[in-house]
């Protein structure tokens, strides 16, 4: 029999820390700091709208690009929150989470051999989606001394005449890094000079703790070369609803819409009706969740300082990215040993790229009580390791 598989997909590596995940899934009574989704329930009024839409029998396809009512609300929301202006008729597409938007944006923009600059550590899907779209991923290693922000020098150094797209994953999973306006202005200048495009994944835009998130779209000359990707998963605690969106110049949306139309049809109708309420009436709910995350962030920062665990202060998303280099173990070794000894799951930094080596991703999408218990165990573990290293 012939090999049924495509070489391209076979050559894409599964997540680098599969072994660690296998151990985690076997562990029954572990507690966790390992999730990448909010611990809050979707606000009840949003769930209620979904139930209502089902009661009314709204169970058909929507138009391919999404419900008009929802697109109008998202346009209002983006204007209200981030001073962005998009035409809901031609510059917006409702997708199955931010994930689909990443995939189809790359497929709509890449030709074979085009290079895509991917800053890492970052979310795991940019690289395989680039490969599947025929592009060539080029990794930029972000540095802790720059607070894991992308600098114009790093960007410049990675650009070749094949470079087409720069991915901007800020606020960042897993580091919690943000890019402030001045940082964006600095790299925007390089991007414009080299005539590149940007895929800006702003799914964590609502979760910033320094000041309100600034989108690169708002930098003059960038809107026409940026695909903005966002969604409701993190901001509105709606991960399971699978609802996101892309905003981009009409000519890009038009091509993305073709892929979406043939591969997906439309985003789930129930989720779209729920999201109308989310975009329209939930600013207050978001603010409450943000305050709560921020309190936990400060708590963790404090605990790390107390146990002398080095960590730069992150101002976005709901992750901390402490360094474990002092223990002379790889991230995966540390995470495995921590899980085995203390029954706490954290994610090795290497899950998000090779340059995540020496770091852990700690999520604070947990109640303060849970965080306390987990951090007590981390403190014990760190003390034990230091003692063992001294004895050795």
């Amino acid at each position, binding site marked *: 029999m012939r090999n049924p598989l495509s070489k391209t997909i076979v050559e894409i590596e599964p997540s680098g820390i599969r072994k660690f995940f296998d151990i985690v899934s076997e562990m029954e009574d572990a507690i966790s700091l390992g999730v990448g989704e909010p611990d809050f329930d979707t606000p009840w009024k949003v769930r209620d709208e979904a139930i209502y839409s089902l009661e009314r029998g709204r169970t058909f396809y929507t138009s391919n690009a999404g419900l008009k009512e929802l697109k109008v609300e998202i346009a209002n929301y983006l204007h209200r929150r981030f001073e962005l202006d998009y035409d809901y008729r031609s510059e917006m597409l409702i997708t199955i989470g931010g994930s689909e938007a990443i995939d189809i944006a790359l497929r709509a923009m890449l030709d074979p051999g085009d290079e895509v600059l991917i800053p890492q550590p970052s979310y795991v899907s940019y690289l395989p989606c680039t490969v599947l779209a025929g592009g060539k991923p080029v990794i930029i290693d972000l540095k802790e001394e720059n607070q894991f922000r992308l600098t114009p020098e790093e960007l410049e150094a990675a650009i070749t005449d094949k470079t087409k797209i720069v991915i901007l994953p800020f606020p960042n999973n897993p580091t919690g890094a943000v890019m402030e306006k001045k940082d964006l202005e600095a790299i925007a200048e390089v991007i414009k000079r080299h005539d590149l495009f940007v895929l800006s994944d702003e799914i964590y835009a609502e979760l910033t703790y320094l000041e309100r998130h600034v989108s690169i779209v708002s930098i003059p000359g960038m809107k026409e070369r940026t695909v903005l990707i966002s969604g409701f998963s993190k901001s509105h605690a709606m991960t399971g609803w699978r609802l996101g969106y892309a905003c981009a110049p009409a000519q890009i949306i038009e091509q993305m819409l073709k892929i979406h139309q043939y591969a997906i049809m439309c985003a789930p109708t129930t989720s779209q009706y729920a999201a109308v309420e989310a975009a329209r009436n939930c600013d207050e709910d978001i603010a409450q969740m943000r305050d709560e995350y921020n309190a936990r962030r*400060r708590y963790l920062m404090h605990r790390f300082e107390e146990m002398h665990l080095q960590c730069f202060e992150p101002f976005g998303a709901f992750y901390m990215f402490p360094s474990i280099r002092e223990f002379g173990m790889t991230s995966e070794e540390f995470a495995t040993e921590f899980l085995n000894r203390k029954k706490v799951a954290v994610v090795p930094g290497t899950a998000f790229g090779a340059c995540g080596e020496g770091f852990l991703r700690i999520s604070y999408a947990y109640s303060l009580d849970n965080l306390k218990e987990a951090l007590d165990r981390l403190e014990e573990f760190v003390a034990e390791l230091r003692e063992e290293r001294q004895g050795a």
Partner: protein
Amino acid sequence: MREKILSYIETNSRVDLHDLAIIMDSDEATIMNELEAMENEHIICGYHTLINWEKAGIEKVTAMIEVRVTPQRGMGFDKVAERIYNYPEVNSVYLISGGFDFMVTLEGKTLREVSEFVSDKLSPLDSVLSTKTNFILKKYKDHGTVMTEQRKDERELVSL
């Protein structure tokens, strides 16, 4: 700052000073002073515990009594309210707009105990015109907390 502290401790009154200072992005001395000041000013009136008595297997009867009264000259409703809230059996007394004047909640061990209070203490008061006693059959939610449910974290242990 006060509002932030109050809204936090309203549902987390057992948080220790050290943690509260971190959560409020302040220091322990400042928080301590604010708390003491608010206790002295009677802004913070107590630190209570929300108990599901039913689960503890302890019988309690709670009634919400609608009371119509005649306000007293020069004192309005306040004097009448005082006569009512001074009874230790009374949990809360609210002045209400609408079809009656006071909502009085009362907790007793038995139905009989509650009804005796109404007939022997409350109704005979000079200014009380009428009462209507509503017994609570089941408490679903109290002080913003759902009494019945115990939620488990159903998320995967690890997700990227």
